[in-house]
């Protein structure tokens, strides 16, 4: 499994399995190294502030503790970032995911409330299915604007970003809709084998995506379209279909995230559900090492990025940063993470210690 998900650089450059000291070298050369380091540092900061931070205890047959919360709360960002990774790989961007999440949450909740038997498991499943089906339509819409009409992705998805939240409010009539359905609630708060269900769902999605992209040719074709669309077209790649597919996939991921967020509080507030989640998702993707200019992507990187974002969100109340300073803290962390990831920054730091380092950017 892990092999499928290994980021492009690490996974492909070495075809044969490596062992021993070469494994260490490979790990050190892995682009995942720095995001993982950043995550570790963040955890260490938390442990220093609250020594019990990493404690996990068993309660009512499931695990409980900060780490479990982080895993659970990371599910929505992880899902959205997963879809976003593929969209970004094709040189696109999807600003509408937050609105799509809101629509999905709104549809699911109103379907449950409106159903004959509000508490039934079947109701919840039906409602989520309808919500995701609508997300497919929304994704088709985005994909249509981008790949057929040819509108720049940021503007094409801005349309839905603006209108989508309106649609979600239309669905809920602007009210906060509260639902009482255990199955639905379990989607976010439930545990399977002691682990949070939401996290398992997200991880399963990542795994499926990993298999779909890396065990088939989809990943390579997506990357080709993202790196050089014209050359791909001339090589016979159906770039239109691929672009369409990734937007639909992105929308479905966002929808799933929306349903989970709604389930987390058993309610939907169309106005705030998933607000600015697109920025978090994009941040997660980039921290994970996928460039916004399209091309090669790393799913594992995105997972690390999403965990990092969620941990950061947890760190703020944990180390007691006052609300006013949240943003400052975030800014510092983002810059720091990007700096340690930047080969140039590391080179500059190394210059102080050793001889001048050769600068080898990409030629042309």
């Amino acid at each position, binding site marked *: 499994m892990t092999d499928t998900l290994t980021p492009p650089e690490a996974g*492909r*450059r*070495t*075809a044969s399995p490596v062992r021993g000291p070469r494994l260490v070298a490979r790990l050190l050369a892995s682009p995942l190294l720095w995001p993982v380091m950043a995550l570790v540092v963040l955890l260490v900061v938390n442990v220093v502030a609250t020594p019990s931070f990493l404690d996990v205890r068993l309660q009512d047959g499931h695990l409980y503790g900060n780490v479990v919360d982080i895993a659970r709360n990371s599910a929505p960002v992880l899902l959205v970032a997963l879809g976003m990774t593929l969209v970004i790989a094709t040189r696109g961007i999807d600003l509408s995911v937050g609105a799509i999440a809101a629509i999905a949450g709104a549809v699911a909740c109103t379907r449950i409330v409106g159903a004959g038997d509000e508490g039934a498991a079947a109701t919840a499943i039906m409602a989520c299915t309808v919500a995701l089906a609508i997300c497919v339509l929304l994704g088709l819409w985005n994909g249509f604007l981008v790949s057929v009409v040819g509108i720049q992705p940021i503007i094409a998805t801005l349309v839905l970003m603006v209108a989508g939240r309106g649609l979600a409010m239309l669905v809920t009539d602007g009210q906060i809709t509260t639902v009482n359905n255990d199955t639905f609630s379990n989607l976010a708060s439930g545990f399977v084998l002691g682990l949070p269900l939401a996290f398992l769902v997200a991880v399963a999605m990542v795994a499926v995506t990993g298999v779909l992209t890396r*065990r*088939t*040719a*989809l990943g*390579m*074709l997506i*990357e*080709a379209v993202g*790196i*050089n669309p*014209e*050359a*791909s*077209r*001339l*090589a*016979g*790649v*159906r770039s239109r279909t*691929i672009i369409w597919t990734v937007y639909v996939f992105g929308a479905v991921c966002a929808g799933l995230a929306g349903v989970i967020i709604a389930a987390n509080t058993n309610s939907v507030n169309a106005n705030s559900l998933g607000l600015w989640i697109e920025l978090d998702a994009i941040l997660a993707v980039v921290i994970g090492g996928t460039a916004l200019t399209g*091309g*090669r992507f790393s799913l594992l990187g995105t997972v690390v990025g999403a965990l990092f974002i969620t941990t950061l969100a947890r760190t703020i109340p944990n180390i007691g940063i006052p609300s006013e300073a949240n943003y400052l803290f975030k800014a510092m962390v983002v810059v720091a993470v990007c700096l340690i990831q930047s080969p140039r920054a590391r080179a500059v730091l190394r210059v102080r210690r050793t001889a*001048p380092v*050769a*600068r*080898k950017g*990409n*030629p*042309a």
Partner: protein
Amino acid sequence: MTTTHEEPPVTATTPVPGERAGEPVIEMRDISITFGSVRALDRVSLRLLPGEVHALMGENGAGKSTLIKALTGVYSIDSGTIVVAGEEHAFATPAAAQAAGISTVYQEVNLVPNLTVAENMLLGREPRRLGGINVRGMNRRARETLDRLGLDIDPSSTLGDHPIAVQQLVAIARAVDVEARVLILDEPTSSLDADEVAKLFEVMRRLREDGVAIVFVSHFLDQIYEIADRMTILRNGRLVEERMVADTTQLELVQLMIGRELEVLDRLDHEHTRTSTDGPPVLKAIGLSRKGSLEATDLSLYDGEVVGVAGLLGSGRTELARLLFGADTADHGSLEIRSSRRRLRSPRHAIDRKIAFSSEDRKAEGVIGDLTVADNMMLALQASRGWLRPIPQAVRNRLVGEYIEALDIRPADPQALMRNLSGGNQQKVLLARWLITEPEVLILDEPTRGIDIGAKAQIQAKVAELARRGMSVVFISAELEEVLRLSDRVVVMRDRRKIAERPNDDVSVSDILEIIAGHGGTPSARTEEESSRD
């Protein structure tokens, strides 16, 4: 901001014209550069004297472009020294090199497509008036420089609207416009026709008279012998030898470059006399046309036949190829594939009908830079199979391995990133991409551009072999000798239409030139028409 070394460190004044043996303008000593695990340059030295044309020779991937980039501050060197006019000095950026009087045309056309021709030529040193750019003055000056090169290109037209060849000419014009003491031309002639090359050489000679030192890279040996005085030969990133051109025979030179005996190309000649024009054509174009790029053109292509397409710059060869492949859609006319009418709406339809097309613009339309060599090779086949049916790893490895060997791609590493390959090797990978799809019709637009002599022979041999095995090939090249050597039939194009079609029994280069010229007008008439297009 970065141009900390902006002060030209050169102290010597312009040397006396004709003085050859003076102190070197530039001396590179023991330069080494390593990219990851690839040692692109290994203690290479280069001496450049004022008033000489110095050829840099070597196979694809020998390190020529890298050496040039090392000199001009694009790459910083791992070790070695660069001495400019007697002082040790390394440039931090291309801007610094330029400020010091080193003017460079890099291998792939490196201009900005969204600006006008004049801006591309003069950006960074535009004439100014009252603090602002004097657009009229800039256009005038660009026009003057273009005139000096005998080019009729509208300076105010957008560069990206011009074909690659014109862009290349503009890049050259940019380089020669400055008062440089060193002019570096990395394969400037790869997409030029004989006429343009002659004009370029004229300019180069004039500059040489003025004492400019010129570095010249080309895979055309004739050109080297025509213009170069001295040469430095590289092989696999190492210095082989520095020689006077006059003291070296062509055969010697080739052997120095490839490090072994050259297989004879002549074997190919006139092996191609199987014009089985009976039976239905595999591909037939009837009155194919597209507004502004191609007028109604007929073409038939039979099994196992190589049709060469000859013509000057902008004569419509590329457009014909693109229409045959469905890369562009035709306004009028129709296509028949094996006698049934087909509309090719996209390259994909063409590929499904076993047609393949390798574009002349490999950077923009071929190379997927951030993918590996293996991925680049498998792309077309994989795309036609659909994403759900990945090619099994074993098959993949076998095919990639085979073609790396068959086409002698270097480095022979399937996992190398495509963008790190030298230009010629990228071209070979693209050829492999199409051969892997086992097409019935292979359309090659300038497949040998920027390819060294050994590789060129390999590719030509490959084409002949494929035709022998029944593949039909449309072969487009600016090099008439090559077209004639390979093709069974020659189609001549001019002014965006087909003007002649001859079986290749006894056609010579001059015959073709006559056909082109006999149709009246000079090549420059073409550029005028073209520049007024937008």
